[in-house]
Each structure stands twice: as C-alpha cells, then as structure tokens.
C-alpha cells in the first residue's frame, strides 16, 4: 500500500509546483511559442512595437534560397560527424588503455575526465591561445614554413581548430561512459579471447566494440546532437573563430544566434531554429531506426 499525502487546500499544491512551472513557462514555453510566431511572421524593421505581419512560409523560402545557409548546413554536418568520430575514437582508445590496467591507469582515468568539467567557452579561450598562429604553442610550426597553421586566414584550419576543441572537451565525457562499459564486460571473456589468441586490437574489434554497442550508440546520439546544436558548439565557435574566416566555421547554431542577436533578424533566425529542430528529429529517428537495430542489448 502506498501512502498518499492528501492536500486539503487547493492552493497549497499549486504553490509548491509554482517555481517549477514558472521555470518551464519562462524558459521553455514562452521562447518556444515566440519562435513559432516569429518564424511565420515578419518582425517590424525597428523593433517589436508595431503589429507583426503574418507571412506564412516566406521566412523559410528566404532561408532556403540563401546559398550561405546551405553552406552553413554543410559545415554543421562536417563539424558534427568529424568531431563526434574524433572524440569517440580517442576516448575509446584511452578507455581501452585504462581498462587494460596499464601502469598509471588510475591516475590517467582521473585526468581524462577533467576536460568535461570545463565550460566550453573556457575551452575555446584556452585553445585560442594554444593555437594562436603567431604567439601560441602551435606557433612553432609557422617557423618551419610560414602559414603552415593559420586559422584566421584559412577556413580549413579554423574548422580543424573548432573540431579539436569540441573533441577535446567531449573525450572526457565519452571516456567515462566507455570505461564504465568496458569494466562491465566480464574479465573472463577477455581472458578467454586472449587464450584464443587475440591481441589487444583484435579483442577490441571482435569483443569490446560489439559488447559495448549499447553504450557506443548512446554516445553517438549524444555527441551528434550536441555537436549539431549544443551550447558547447556555440561557445567554442564564438570564442575561437566567431564563425570565420569568411564564414568557414559558421555552423548552424552559431549562425542562428548571430543572425538573431547581431543581425536582429529574429524571423530568419526563428525559422532556421525550427529547421534545425526538424533536422535533429530526423537524425535521431534515423539513428534509432537503423543503427539501434544492429546494437546488441544483452
């Protein structure tokens, strides 16, 4: 029998729920409805004083017609997939090393987790200094040959820089989950495979990856979503490249925010957000539908 607390008064329960309701209202429902209305209306040129003009799908047509928008979508896809692959791969290698209990693995496990605790803008700032072409640690490569590394000049370098920042931060997060996953694989399985003659790489491919599949799938969804729309991506881009040079790192999240709050094009930004949300839904659907099927849950 579960005991139920019965409130005699009608107002008391509402009062208790109020803080949470207010939070949800102000930070979710209100912005969400604003985005919806903005996406389908035209913001008056000089602020929100006048009546909004309902324009139907015009904002979307405009966005889709913009060549720069499509460039941004491509950049986002490149960024999301590369950053996810890089951070998951490195995290996996590190987790395998820690799981093998090589010398000092306890200490390294501790350090590997740290990056995740650092806020993305801080990561961005740190990497901006490390990768500054003229004065950072990386500057030495430019003494070998000028402009070997210059993210302020070359779009590809800038993209590499943001990808490295994102991957670096997310390695820690992926690492925690992968280490936990690897440790839940019975040791005797690993021993059996080593009796069967497989070395560490073979074992990782034949045993650990398949057995870790549920964890890897979860991380894949999370990493892709986060790199596609996450605040981390925005923070890193904002503090390292500001979308540049020449829009080479102007990924969708960054474009939306800068268009809304610097370009003050609320309508365009709102419709882009809706498109982004739609894209994420499609992505997640695809992942669950087609990737998850190949995943073994024990």
């Amino acid at each position, binding site marked *: 029998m579960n005991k139920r607390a019965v409130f005699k008064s009608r107002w008391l329960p509402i009062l208790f729920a109020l803080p949470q309701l207010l939070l949800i209202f102000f930070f979710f429902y209100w912005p969400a409805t604003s985005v919806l209305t903005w996406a389908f209306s035209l913001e008056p040129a000089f602020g929100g004083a006048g009546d909004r003009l309902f324009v139907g799908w015009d904002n979307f047509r405009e966005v889709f017609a913009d060549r720069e928008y499509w460039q941004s979508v491509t950049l986002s896809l490149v960024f999301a997939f590369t950053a996810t692959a890089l951070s998951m791969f490195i995290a996996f290698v590190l987790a395998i090393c820690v799981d093998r209990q090589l010398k000092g693995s306890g200490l390294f496990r501790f350090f590997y987790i740290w990056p995740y605790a650092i806020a993305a803008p801080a990561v961005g700032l740190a990497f901006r200094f490390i990768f500054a072409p003229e004065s950072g640690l990386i500057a030495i490569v430019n003494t070998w040959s000028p402009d070997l590394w210059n993210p302020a000049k070359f779009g590809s370098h800038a993209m590499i820089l943001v990808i490295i920042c994102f991957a670096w931060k997310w390695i820690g997060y992926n690492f925690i989950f992968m280490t936990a996953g690897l440790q839940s694989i019975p040791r*005797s*399985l690993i021993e*059996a495979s*080593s*009796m*069967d003659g*497989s070395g560490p790489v073979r074992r990782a491919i*034949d045993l650990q990856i398949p*057995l870790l599949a549920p964890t890897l799938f979860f991380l894949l969804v999370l990493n892709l979503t986060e790199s596609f729309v996450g605040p981390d991506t925005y923070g890193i881009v904002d503090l390292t490249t500001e979308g540049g040079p020449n829009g080479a790192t102007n990924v969708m999240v960054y474009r939306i925010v800068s268009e809304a709050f610097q370009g003050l094009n609320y309508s365009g930004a709102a419709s882009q957000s809706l498109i982004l949300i739609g894209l994420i839904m499609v992505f997640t659907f695809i992942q669950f539908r087609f990737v998850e099927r190949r995943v073994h849950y024990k």
Partner: protein
Amino acid sequence: MAEINIRNVRKSYGRTQILHGVDLDFKSGEFVVILGPSGCGKSTLLRMIAGLEEISSGEISIDGTIVNNLEPRDRGCSMVFQNYALYPHMNVAANIGYALKVAGVPRAERDRRITETARIVGLEEMLDRKPAQLSGGQRQRVAMGRAIIREPKVFLFDEPLSNLDAKLRVQMRVEIRRLHKRLSATSVFVTHDQVEAMTLADKLIVMNKGHVEQVGTPLEIYHRPRTRFVGTFIGSPAMNFFDSTIAPSGNFVLLDGIQIAIDSALGRDNADSTVSVGIRPEHCRLVKAGTANSVPATVDFVEELGSGRNVHVDIDGTIFAVSGDEGQLFETGATVGLQLPSEHIHLFSRDTGLRLDDAPVLKHNTNQSTVAA
C-alpha cells in the same frame, strides 16, 4: 601432448603470498586434478600455467620451454572457465571457431573443423544459436568445443562443473574423462569437489593454503593421506580424529581404556608421545555394547542415505561418524560399542600434522614430487 614442469613457483599480491613455492611435474597425457578448499591457490596456479596470471618467482615450463614470459596464446594451452566465458554476441559456431578465425585459418577449413568439433561435443544442431539460448550443460559443451578445436597441447579446466546441477555434473564428468581418453592431451583440472577429483584424476594434487599437501593417485591419497589436512579433506563423511597417547610399551593407542595395536616399530619410535589418530567412518564398526575391543558410545543421530547410513556416535563428547553398517538399525540414544580396526588407523603428528609412518610412502613416490617446505 606436453609435459608440464613447475619449479618453485610463488605468487604474491603485494605482501600477501598466495603460493609458497610449488614444485610439480605433470607427465605428458596425464589427467591431473588439483583439489583444495577455496582460497588455497589452486586456481591461481592454473591461471599461471595459462598465462593469465603473472608468476612472481619460479619457473613453469611446458614441453621443455619456459613459458614465464610467453603470452597466453603462445603457450599452446586452452582453458575451460568456470562461468564458460562464452562470447555472448556470437553464435555457437563463431564461439567455437573464434580461435581459428584469429589464427587466420581459411573459411572452408574452419567450417570443416567447427562441424567436426561440434559433433564431438554433441552440438551439431545448435550451431546457429546464441549462448543465451542454451542450457547450462550446452554452454559447457560450447566451452569445451572452443577448447578442443585448437588441438592444444594442454587443457586447463577451472572448476568447469561447479555451475551445473548435480545430475548434469556427473554426466559432464564422464564426458570430460571420455574426451581426455580420445584426445589424450595433458589436462589440468581444478576443483574443490572431492568426488570429481577422485573420479577424474590420474594424478591427484591436494593443496592447502598455498602449499601442496600431497601428490599421488586418488587411491594412494585416500588410503595413505600424508597430512591430517588431506585426511580430513578427502572422504565423506570426513575422517574421525581424536588425540591420544601411545602407551609406554609403544604398542597401543589408548582410547577410553581400550588399546589398539599399531605397527610395533612405529609405536616404539613414538612411545609416550601424544598423536592425532584418524580413522575413516567407513572403517569404523558398530557392535553390541560390551563386545570385546569396543568402546561404549551413544548414538547421537542417524543420517539415512538410502544405500547406507551415517551413524554419528558420541564418546565422552567426541562425535564419531560411522558409515555403511549393513542393515543394522540404531535408535538415537542407544548405547553401542565402537570398534576401530587397527589396520585402518592413521597416525599423525599432533604438532606438524604429518603422517607418522610416511617414510614408505615417500620412498614409493620418489619420482613424483612432494611438498616444498
């Protein structure tokens, strides 16, 4: 087929020493069973042979090659684990054939050997199933198949039957023995079950607390336990023990007034000393109270086994187990006489626990190894 030689092998984790210098030799094709209570170091020893556990000091050689620094895969051993350690995401065929796949054996050859192995372990019908869809006994067979297919020089079994129910265990025991006959690879089998040990072993090794207590054939160990521990550990119900003093004449063990003749030389050598006397329940006899050469005892309780019974009798607070008396019925609380035939008496030193008349056994066994200090 390979010989295994273990020379002064020690194992310690930090300061705790698990194995205190073990010396053993296994002949080619022998079925060796290592028996001992949990925590005696038997599994550790097995895992050291396999290469899953580092050797702290000493040497293990297989077929004359010192394997201390060889990877498990280079030692030519295969192992059956206690929990089978099957790969849960692979079907039976893939589980059995994994070693060959890793070794790069071509597909056709691999399939042929998988089918053959599956036939040997009786799994032809199950090749497509995943381990989760198999019963305990079938999983056990997969684990055996996986060990056989590599045609190893040495088979290692780490308590492989302990997760099976009693009936299946007996059946698998017979199959393992049959398999050994067929493949005749050197086999090392670790168990804490004395029945498994007695029935499977060519050579039985009893271990306790990181020491080898005795090495011998099952019958040697049953009839002439070298230490008190071995006496207690082998046999069910356990051997009865009581402390006693050898009479000044050197000929008798005294128990509550009655004297039992013992080997005269042995008695003379140990005259006046206190010894630990052991006798197996199956060698004790219950007779009518007052019979000559019997000790009066009270029946404490009776365990019926169907094929016989274990009668526990009380002599001045010491409980004796007596088993297998033909058809005799004993009421709880009845007074009976207990006879302890002298030819079945085992004498152990009270201090060291060593058998007093061990010398002939040792001579007899010189080619087999014995305990290290």
